[in-house]
């Protein structure tokens, strides 16, 4: 186990080693002390093929779900990203045996006996709140610190707690820690006020070992909800209706270990699609599910790009300056909030004026000030960005303030004239595997400086 730094109180910085799939792979020790920078010489068209990794949002639900089983589970097609590593560390701290093999992870819950999640790690990761549902289902008890993650505005977990209460748990929040206790979790009907992905997943996790059937109405329909349902079904639970707004979970007393391949990351794919358009490039994305990308594909087509399916891939071609488009972010299958920032980076050099409304989160336009440093003409009014396209951006030193904002600044840097320095690679590493290597293979000039 890694020693925690006395100065920062955090785990030491991430170290990387080579695997057969990638030049880099995460070690077993997560951390975020190092402040890295991507140095980009912009203006090069992206061209070639890029392999999309397993979904971050799925992985951070599937990894804790492994603890529900009595036997060993294996997750394949896992992205080698920091959030995955932090979660693996949390599971180890809880007593599970965790072993990485390239892009796969084996998790054996034997030895796992703690219902208290380690606060130091939990606060680094928004999705650590899934431990609430898992620990409650397994032990009838859980203590998990309120989660961390990107600063994109308030993201209350009241819908999660409402679900746990409905299942029969006693819920208390004391000193920043959520404390849950239940003698017996019992299936019931739960109507979510909003189709929250986190609440839907957390209730599915808790209900999978509850007595009887739980019905979640107004459930989230995101692909990673379906991916988790597939995994829970393989483990012996019975989940019906995932991907629709009504999900039924028939709980089971014991669950077995299972092998599961993580669904491809639609948001990583969306970012590379945006990068192809921003650089007027021609990129084939492999290992994607085109249906999950339809809202993004439709918007890019509207902007003048060619987006076509090729087997399990999508090809994106853009030869001319894109046209301005108007967008409002919505829960799936609407235009995803995670693709909003990279899209604004593309619209910054589009022909005409775009209006981009962020309707999911309160504080997701903070990166706009960084794009303005690069010459973009953007005005923010509340949760709306009015983007007046300019012929080109100019490279500048900029700072990522969250994961997708960092990706947007990289997209902007790739299209800009001259040199861009994107500070804060540790935020980008949370959700993008080997971004500089993937972009370099497409012809970009990008390097990492620690």
């Amino acid at each position, binding site marked *: 186990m890694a020693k925690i730094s006395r100065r920062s109180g955090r785990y030491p910085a991430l170290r990387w080693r080579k695997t057969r799939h990638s030049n880099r792979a995460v070690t077993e020790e997560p951390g975020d002390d190092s402040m890295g920078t991507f140095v980009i010489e912009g203006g090069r068209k992206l061209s070639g093929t890029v392999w999309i990794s397993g979904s971050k949002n799925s992985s951070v639900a599937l990894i804790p779900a492994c603890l529900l089983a009595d036997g060993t589970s294996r997750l394949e097609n896992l992205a080698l990203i920091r959030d995955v590593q932090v979660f693996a560390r949390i599971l180890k701290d809880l007593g599970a045996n965790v072993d990485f093999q390239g892009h796969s992870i084996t998790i054996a819950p034997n030895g796992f006996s703690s219902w208290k999640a380690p606060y130091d790690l939990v606060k680094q990761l928004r999705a650590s709140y899934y431990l609430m549902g898992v620990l409650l289902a397994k032990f009838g008890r859980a203590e998990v610190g309120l989660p961390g993650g990107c600063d994109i505005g308030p993201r209350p977990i009241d819908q999660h707690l409402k679900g746990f209460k409905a299942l029969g748990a006693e819920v208390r929040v004391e000193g920043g820690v959520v404390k849950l206790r239940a003698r017996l979790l019992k299936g019931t009907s739960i109507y979510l006020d909003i189709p929250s992905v986190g609440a839907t997943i957390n209730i599915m996790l808790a209900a999978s070992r509850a007595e009887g059937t739980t019905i979640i109405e107004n459930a989230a329909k995101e692909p990673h909800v*379906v991916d988790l349902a*597939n995994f829970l079904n393989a483990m012996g639970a019975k989940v019906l209706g995932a991907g629709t707004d009504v999900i039924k979970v028939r709980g089971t007393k014991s669950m077995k270990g299972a092998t599961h391949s993580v669904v491809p990351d639609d948001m990583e794919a969306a970012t590379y699609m945006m990068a192809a358009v921003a650089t007027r490039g021609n990129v084939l994305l492999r290992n994607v599910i085109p249906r999950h990308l339809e809202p993004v594909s439709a918007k890019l087509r509207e902007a003048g790009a060619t987006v076509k399916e090729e087997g399990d891939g999508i090809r994106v071609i853009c030869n001319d300056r894109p046209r301005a488009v108007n967008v409002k972010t919505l829960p799936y299958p609407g235009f995803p909030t995670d693709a909003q920032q990279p899209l604004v980076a593309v619209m910054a050099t589009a022909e005409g004026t775009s209006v981009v409304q962020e309707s999911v989160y309160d504080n997701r336009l903070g990166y706009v000030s960084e794009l303005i440093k690069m010459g973009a003409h953007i005005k923010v009014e509340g949760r709306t960005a009015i983007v007046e396209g300019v012929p080109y951006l100019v490279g500048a030193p900029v700072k990522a303030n969250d994961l997708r904002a960092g990706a947007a600044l990289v997209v902007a840097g790739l299209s800009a004239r001259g040199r861009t320095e994107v500070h804060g690679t540790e935020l980008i590493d949370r959700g993008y595997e080997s971004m500089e290597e993937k972009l370099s293979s497409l012809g970009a000039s990008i390097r990492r400086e620690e």
Partner: protein
Amino acid sequence: MGEFEETRFFKVKTEKQNTAREIILEVYRALKEKGHNPVSQIAGYLISGDPTYITSHRNARSLVRQIERDEILEELVRAYVEQYGDK
């Protein structure tokens, strides 16, 4: 001329019917090979439209998207009625 003197009836399946049936069976086999419950996974796909229900094993995920869901449903109902319906 002799061989054409009698009226003969041929049951000709349309290309679409064959394609839908072949695809359903191929997807079923792929899901079974990967250890899933194929009936529940295909039902999940039909009600949600999300290809996440279908494994990428044996190219099943791409295959299932070659036909519309309503064509799959029609084929399933047709086969059910042929098997159990009034004759």
